[in-house]
């Protein structure tokens, strides 16, 4: 779905830290949403922690940078980091080019898939939340 010019594909889970989650077998794949990648500008760096790192839903575990901005990456679920998108090491701007596809960031083995229920999936809910985010950001 397109919300105010930003793509938010259906079938994904979205958190309020601007990351998306997709179930892939027994793993959860995560990345940055379209609104966030546009606001960030051209992304030049994503920290890629070692596999095996323990993650907690809603807690930051690495950093992401564009030329002008430094942000935190928050985990979409609690679990173990099992894979990173190594393409991002030399080409972090894949996140700008294809944030839901080739620009995926991390794969996590969740402790409990039920945690995904804490994320947003309903289009109306996502729309209301994003509009509020856009309004908040435009005040700055």
């Amino acid at each position, binding site marked *: 779905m397109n919300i105010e010019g930003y793509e938010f594909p259906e079938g994904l889970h979205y958190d309020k830290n601007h990351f998306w989650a997709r179930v892939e077998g027994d793993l959860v794949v995560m990345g940055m949403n379209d609104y966030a990648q546009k606001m960030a500008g051209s992304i030049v*760096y994503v920290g890629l922690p070692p596999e095996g790192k323990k993650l907690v839903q809603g807690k930051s575990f690495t950093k992401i*940078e564009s*030329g002008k901005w*430094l942000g935190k990456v928050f985990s979409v679920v609690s679990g173990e980091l099992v894979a990173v998108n190594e393409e991002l*090491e030399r080409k972090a701007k894949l996140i700008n080019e294809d944030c839901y596809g080739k620009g995926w960031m991390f794969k996590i083995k969740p402790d409990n898939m039920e945690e995904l229920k804490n994320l947003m999936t309903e289009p109306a809910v996502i729309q209301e939340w994003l509009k509020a985010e856009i309004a908040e950001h435009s005040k700055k």
Partner: protein
Amino acid sequence: MSTQLQLDEKRRKAITQCSRCGFCRAVCPIFDLTKRPITNARGKMILMKEIMEGTVPVTEGVAQALLRCTTCMNCTVNCPSGVDPQEVIKAARKDMVAMGYDNLFKKMGEVVEKYGNIYGEEERHNWGHKKGKAPYALFVGCVGTFREEESVGEAIQLLDLLKVDFTMIDEVCCSGVMEDVGYKIKEELALRNIRELQKTSANTLITTCPYCYRVFKEHPSYKELGLEVKHITQFLKDFDLGVKTLKKVTYHDPCDLGRHAGIYDEPREIIRKIAPNFVEPRRSRENAMCCGSGGGLRGSFPEDSIEISRNRLSQMIEETGAEILLTECPSCLHNFRNAKLRKQKIEIYNITEFIAQLFQEGREKELA
């Protein structure tokens, strides 16, 4: 509004002095990356000569080309004709702005004025250290505060471990960087820093950032400071540190500390005290290759900036086989850490950060 380059006689002479020998190509970090003549000092000198002669018009493309330089001075120290291209390039950047070719750093100037830092952060980290009167005042700068906070924290901890009586201040950006990218230092911010520093009654200002060091020491806006200015390596070189590592260590000379400020020996004196296995890279001191973060390049061409850093890092790893890379500049540190590939096992620190960690390791061993 001017429509021509306003370069003074000295700079015009420098442009015509360029013999186009191309020696600068061998040491230019951007030419090394792009192989495009315009990215190198020789190409820029030719361009500016043709603009001066009226054969090439000033365009947005020219303004952008002039931004693609880290001002590392490697061209300067290797120029057989005695030209200082980076100094001419910085002057030409100001001319571009005067001609109406504002660049992205105009916005940064507005941000610096509004927020007191180059990143637009509303709050500056509170280090929890005293802010009052002391014989030494410590200034940490924007890059350290907002991009390498942990490293700065370790430097502060080190000074405490060494029982240095120092105070910190409510800093704002030294704002010297504006002069390098076509604009002017923010006088009001400079005055605020001077006022805050003078309130400390300190005799000496210690900076962790080589760029801030240069601004405080050299820029006319800080001439009323009244404090001796030292980079932290100058301050620490005579301390008896009492810690050691047996790991193989190498050192990267930051351009702002080395070529620009002439500080080469002090960091090495410190490293030799703590690392008997210190190995110099082939290109070191005046000939050190740039990390890519200076001259505004990290803001204007961030991908180039990180790629240059990657090249320098790979060069140092290959030449030295070091396990530890030390430097003492928050910008170099940040760029290297961004550039490091996962397969590269080298650890990268500022010297002060590394020493603080050695102290910590020593304490943990004692307690164990």
